[in-house]
Each structure stands twice: as C-alpha cells, then as structure tokens.
C-alpha cells in the first residue's frame, strides 16, 4: 500500500463547509492521493463524495487546501491559485450522461477537441467510436439513445480528450447489470492501456468488487478508511459504512467477558440472553459493542448441528421468508432478529416457512465489531 502511494499522480487536500439543502451540513475535510489505476471513493449518500469530485474538477472552490495532478497545482488556497475547470484537462462523468441534446453523438464527442486540427480530430473521434462500439450511433441525437448508450457516449466524450485524471460520479447507477458489466469492461480496458488516476464514486458494493484496486471510504466529509477493497469493506469500522457495504445485520450488545488467550470475547445481545462469541476488540467487560454480520454469512440448520468449528450455534424461530430475485430473505428470531440470505434451492430443501424452528450457525470471524 505505502509503496503504491509514494508516487501519487493526483493529490487532494481540501476543506469546505457544505450547507447543502438536501443533506445535513457538514465540514468536508479530506486528504488523500490517487495513483494511476482505479480508486473507488465509497460511502453512504450525502457523505461528500460528489463534492470531492466537484472540487477536483474546479466546479466548486474549496475554502482551503491544495489539489495537484502529477506535480501541477490546480488549486492552492494558501497561494490563491485556482485554475478554472476548462484549463484543468480532466475527464468528469456525471451520474446523468449530460449529453448536449442539440448535438449528435459524434458532435458531442468532438466537443472537447476544439483545439485539434480537423484531420486529427476526425481520427481521434473515429478511434474512440470504434473502441466504444458506437459507430452506428454516431449520427443519433441523445434523445434517440438508450440510457446505457448515452452513458457510453458520455464516457467516450470524456476519454477522447486524453484527460490527465478521470472522475466518475456513480456513472452506472440506474443501468441494468449487463450494461454495467459491459461499460465496466470498457473502462477496465481503457485503464489497462492508459494508466491515469481514475477516481470512481459509488455507494454500490458490487461496483467496488468489479472495479476497485483501491478504495477510500468516506463518511460525513471525513475519510474513514483506505486500502484494498476486501480489507476495507469486509471489516468496516463504522456502522453507516457497514450498512452501505452490505452488512444487513447490525446488532448491539454488552461485552460479558474477554478471553485474551483465545483472542475472542463473548457478547450478550441487547434485549435477550443470547450470547455470541466475537473477535477480540479493545472493549472491556460491561462495554457496549456493535456487531455487523453479513446476511450471507449466516448458516441455517433444521437440527442442532454438532462437531462444527463455528462457535456460535443459536436456536431460533423463522419469522418471515421473502423472495428477492434469486435470494430468500429469512428473518430469524434468536433472541435478536437476524437476517439471513439463502438460495432458493436451500429454502426448498429446508421447506422454510414462518414458524419453522431453526438453528443459526455463525463463525466468530463473521462477526465484525463496528463503531
């Protein structure tokens, strides 16, 4: 990690008080670097992710800080330097494609190439149209494009200018999975060939898994964690991030005892006598803790299992089952109500229905302590 970050291409340090009408006001205060490759900026909505991108692009002026790309300063509050957005030479893809409605796809893509000579411009546009499979859409107006096509044209429009940095603000939200995957593939291919810093904002865990080499998590204007996605998102240290990264269960409890030798502690869940074993934290007996558990990490059994390595085997009753696409959402009352996800075939094999007596099996390491 540290080695990767020693020669950053984009470095950002900004402070800015946000008093947005839609979200609660907060102080944005971040300091991070983005090396070439895809870095995900991850966090719940309203965390300040888009504001960070707007600051980098120059659409919002931070109150203090410094932003630079490959050694060139774009903004320096102390030196009173603020390069206007049109001279920053960055690519920025918004959540909406923001294509110019009166221009064709081709004219949209050409828009950022005004400084090139005609021949060069034609060549660049032809190349990018081919690369993004847009040749047959070249003469269409945005109103005649589907959502996925429009976003692909917008991506081509950003990349044809050979930006020094690419900023993406939830560009795939609202597109279906197939389209997402094909655009992600295009983006990965571009990344492999060009290796510029790409900062990708999302609150969708699946996009993090598909794209991320690095992830920076942010909440309420502050950076919470950074690192590789698996490490950061599988062990979230904040409840809001845990919920955002797909931890369906957040349980509260009191530490009963701490077993230093075993590296575990036992926690009594609030409002019940149920005790579960969790990895060791900094807490002492009697302290309050919060535990995040993925619904997919919970095993269900009809009879009390034995001879397992898993330390938590809890008895409970199935409260409700609900099908959501290819997953069965099961709510099990085992002192506390836990959400467990099982496949359709598993639900059939166990003939799950409300009232079924069940055993819940939970590994100690599937229980994550969060703040």
């Amino acid at each position, binding site marked *: 990690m540290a080695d990767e970050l020693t020669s950053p291409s984009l470095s950002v340090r900004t402070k800015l008080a946000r008093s947005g009408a839609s979200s609660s006001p907060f102080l944005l205060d971040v300091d991070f670097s983005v090396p070439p490759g895809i870095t995900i900026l991850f966090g719940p909505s309203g965390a300040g992710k888009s504001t960070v991108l707007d600051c980098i692009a120059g659409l919002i002026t931070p109150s203090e800080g410094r932003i630079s790309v490959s050694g060139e300063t774009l903004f320096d509050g102390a030196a009173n330097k603020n390069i206007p957005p049109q001279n920053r030479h960055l690519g920025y893809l918004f959540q909406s494609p923001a294509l110019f409605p009166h221009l064709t796809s081709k004219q949209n893509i050409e*828009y950022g190439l005004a400084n090139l000579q005609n021949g060069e411009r034609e060549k660049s546009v032809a190349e990018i149209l081919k690369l993004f499979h847009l040749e047959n859409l070249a003469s269409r107006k945005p109103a005649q494009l589907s959502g996925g096509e429009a976003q692909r044209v917008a991506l081509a429009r950003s990349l044809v*200018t050979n930006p020094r940095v690419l900023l993406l603000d939830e560009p795939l939200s609202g597109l279906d999975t197939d389209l997402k995957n094909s655009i992600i593939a295009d983006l990965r291919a571009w990344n492999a060939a060009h290796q510029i810093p790409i900062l990708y904002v999302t609150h969708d865990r699946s996009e993090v898994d598909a794209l991320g080499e690095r992830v920076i998590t942010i909440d309420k204007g502050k950076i919470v964690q950074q690192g590789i996605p698996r490490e950061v998102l599988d062990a979230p240290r904040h409840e809001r991030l845990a919920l955002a990264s797909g931890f369906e269960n957040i349980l509260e409890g009191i530490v009963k005892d701490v077993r230093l030798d075993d590296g575990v502690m036992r926690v009594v869940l609030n409002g019940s006598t149920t005790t579960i074993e969790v990895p060791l934290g900094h807490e002492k007996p009697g302290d309050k803790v919060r535990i995040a558990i993925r619904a997919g990490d919970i095993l269900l059994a009809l009879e009390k299992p034995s001879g397992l390595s898993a330390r938590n085997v809890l008895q409970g009753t199935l409260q409700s089952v609900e099908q959501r696409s290819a997953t069965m959402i099961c709510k099990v009352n085992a002192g506390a109500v836990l959400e467990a996800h099982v496949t359709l075939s598993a639900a059939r094999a166990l003939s799950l229905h409300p009232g079924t007596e069940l055993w819940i099996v939970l590994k100690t390491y599937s229980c994550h302590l969060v703040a």
Partner: protein
Amino acid sequence: MTELLLSFRLAFLVTAILLVLATPFAYWLAFTKWRAKFLIEAIVALPLVLPPTVLGFYLLIAMGPRGPLGKLWLALFGHTLAFTFTGLVIASVLYSLPFCIQPLVASFERLDPKLLDASRVLGASKWRTFRKIILPLSLPGVIIAIVLTFAHTLGEFGVVLMVGGNLQGITRTVSISIYDHVQSIEYAEANQLALTLLVISFVLLTFVYGTNRRAGLRWLTN
C-alpha cells in the same frame, strides 16, 4: 403610411438594441449567486406594472433640459432628447426591457446546469459554452423575446405620447395616429391602421408558437 413605417423603424431598432443589451444582462441574472439579485429583478420588472404615463413622465423629466440625460445630450448634440425619435428609442428600450429579458432569463435558468458543467470540464470557456450550448438550447426563448419586444414596442402608446409627443414623421407612431383618427371621428382611417396592427400581431404570435413547436421537436428528430 408614414406612421406605420415609423412604428416599424422604432420596433426594429429597439429590438436590436435590447437583444444586444439584454442578453448579457439576462445571462448575469440567470447565473449570478448574488443575494441581492431580486432587487435588480424588481427594477427590471417595474415597467410591467407601472402605468406608462408614470414611466413616461419621469423619462420626460430626465430627458428635458434640466434632466441628467437631457443635459448630457444638450452638451453633446446641441438639443435635448424630449420629443425626438432618439428619445423615443431610449424610452422604448426601457419600457420593453422586461419583455426581452424575462423570456431570456427563463430559458437560461431552465437549462440543465450539468450541461454547462460538462462543457466547462471539456475545456470550453464561458464564451464558447454560451455560443455552443446555452444559446442554441435557448433559441425558443430568444425568439419569444424578439417577438414580444417587437410587438410590445409596436403597440406602445402612453410612454410615446409623454416622451415623444405627437410630431408627424418624427414621433407619431401608429397607436397615436389611431387615437388621433378616433378623436377626429375618422373611424375608417382608424380601422385601417388598427386592423393592420391586429393582423401583424396575429402573424407574429402564430410564428412564435409555430417556431417554438418545431424548435422543440428539432432536437428529438433528424
């Protein structure tokens, strides 16, 4: 016929001057984050609610030999502005300002701000963004502004009478001429001019609505 020509000359001049002046003004009003902008908006909208005689009265005072505008003109050209065609043009520009500026501001404000952000990020200056994105997308608003300004100037009466008086070939516009004819019980002549204005107004409005519809469709097809 001199009255009709004079009115058209006035309307053309005023529309041309207003387009040049009102467009940057409207751009500023639409995009400024200045908090006291409502004050300017109120001042611009004043001619909409003021009786034309009130506006005309103050303009007459300003343009007279003791008024600031009149004094300036006197020093520069040797005569005041009251009861001259130039005075009429200046008065009409002020009187028709809201009719030109409001459709422009409305259509600028309706633009998706993300389009303007996209243009800037793609390297376009504010001026290029204005020419290539804002103006073409606001074309229906521009056409409405032109037609409303033109028609409104063509038909004004009170301000013209106060500032310009009733001098044939200099300040006697169609509407004043119609009034004159009615006063002299020359209904046939009055009707001729009135009907001409009615037809012209109708044709202009048909053009506005027709263009607007086609302009709206143009981005969807071809």
